[in-house]
């Protein structure tokens, strides 16, 4: 593709994770049309995630949730100048090929959509577009990195407006990282076996004390305080799905969640951002979800 100088390299791991680095400290918002995308951009979103239905509606409507209509994605790309992400089903590499040919900036291989392959995730090294994947613990995060993901997010429990699962997953991942740091090099192969994760990545995390890619939170953020909580727990940025456009006043809530993500360590700012908001999305208690309704259990 490069015709100048002959030295430029595209789609290197550094170029892929580089975009994830630039999203840090920001909020990526789920949007279903160009109008919502504009609202998100004007509220300070650092990227938007284009999808057909927000997770709360996918839960309500049931049926098979698939990649969005390309025309809708193009409409969103035309409407905003910030990066546009889109979701492919777990294992559905042909959907990912379509998204790449649409020139989306990031592909989310997402458990929010109905999985296409119950055994295998997409071989993400095959693609030039960077991928973000969900994880519930460190082993899962490292397996996704072993397949070529350039960014990890907690799975949480999308579409519930309940932060409890995101907290669980973020703590699982960060405490897993801390634990690796306490092991000797002799103990790391066994740790890799127990995590079912590539040894090379386990060694890397044990040495650096962090994932080799940015770690974001997703799945359940509904309020500014939720956003601040996840940042204090170690998230480097937040995805917000149903929490914004399923609330009373999406514009104001979007801005407030952006502010709380930036000033996560400043309770006065988070307080100010939390005032004068309408009602948050209603939310679902986990025990009210049947086991087969838990999206986080999709993928391995």
């Amino acid at each position: 593709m490069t015709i100048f100088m002959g030295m430029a390299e595209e789609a290197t791991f550094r170029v892929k994770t580089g975009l994830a680095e630039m999203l840090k400290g920001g909020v990526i918002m789920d949007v279903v049309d160009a109008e919502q995308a504009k609202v998100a951009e004007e509220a300070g979103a650092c990227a938007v995630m284009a999808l057909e239905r927000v997770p709360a509606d996918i839960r309500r409507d049931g049926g098979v949730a698939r990649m969005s209509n390309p025309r809708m994605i193009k409409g969103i790309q035309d409407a905003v100048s910030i990066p546009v992400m889109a979701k492919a089903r777990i294992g559905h590499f042909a959907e990912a090929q379509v998204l790449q040919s649409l020139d989306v900036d990031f592909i989310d291989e997402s458990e929010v959509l109905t999985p296409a392959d119950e055994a295998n995730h997409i071989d993400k090294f095959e693609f030039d577009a960077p991928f973000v994947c969900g994880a519930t613990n460190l082993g899962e995060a490292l397996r996704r990195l072993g397949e070529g993901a350039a960014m990890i997010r907690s799975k949480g429990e999308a579409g519930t407006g309940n932060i409890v699962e995101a907290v669980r997953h973020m703590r699982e991942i960060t405490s897993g990282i801390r634990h690796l740091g306490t092991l000797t090099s002799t103990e790391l192969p066994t740790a890799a076996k127990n995590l079912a994760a590539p040894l090379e990545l386990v060694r890397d995390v044990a040495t650096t004390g962090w994932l080799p890619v940015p770690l974001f939170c997703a799945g359940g953020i509904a309020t500014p305080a939720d956003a601040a909580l996840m940042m204090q727990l170690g998230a480097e940025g937040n995805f917000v799905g149903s929490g914004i456009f399923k609330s009373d006043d999406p514009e104001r809530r979007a801005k407030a969640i952006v502010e709380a993500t930036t000033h996560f360590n400043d309770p006065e700012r988070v307080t100010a951002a939390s005032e004068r908001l309408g009602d948050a999305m209603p939310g679902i208690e986990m025990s009210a979800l049947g086991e087969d309704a838990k999206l986080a259990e999709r993928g391995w």
Partner: protein
Amino acid sequence: MPNGAGSPGPAQAGAPLRIGVLALQGGFAAHLKHLGSVGALGVEIRRPGDLVGLDGLILPGGESTTITMGMEQYGLVEPIRDLISAGRPILGTCAGMIVADSDHLGLIDMTTRRNAFGRQLASFEEDIELTGMDGRPFRAVFIRAPWVEELGEGVEVLAEVRGHPVAVREGKMSAFSFHPELTDDNRLHSWFVDQCRG
């Protein structure tokens, strides 16, 4: 939090320089790491009080709309202009280059084009020739990068890629459309810290 209580002016000889990195959104963490590697003290800037006692400021990459809105909302625009009036050097990278242009903070007499090379699939890394970097090539990582569209007479071009300026300097202000913080090479940070030492 490192704010308000900082020293009132530039650091004394021997003390590490305090260099602020605007930390509203984007790639600020990697800049802080590089500053540490060249012996400077990096300070996260989120509020006007954080700007007190700085020897220089970095405007990092990220989303320029998000960063620009945050600067206005949190009252950072005027204090940053004051920093310039006080003669402190400022360096912008990627979105920070856009923030520094004539349509935004007006730190450098130039206009920029956002996402000039294209979307993420067109992002790339390349060895470039960068003035002031002792002749060895500089690995430049371009992520949805801008370039300089038009520039004023007083603006010096430090590097070009595909015929467009991607590194410029005017007085104590400099801007780069690539990400020196994403490689292990800290020559550019070292160059900037030298300028801050005055």
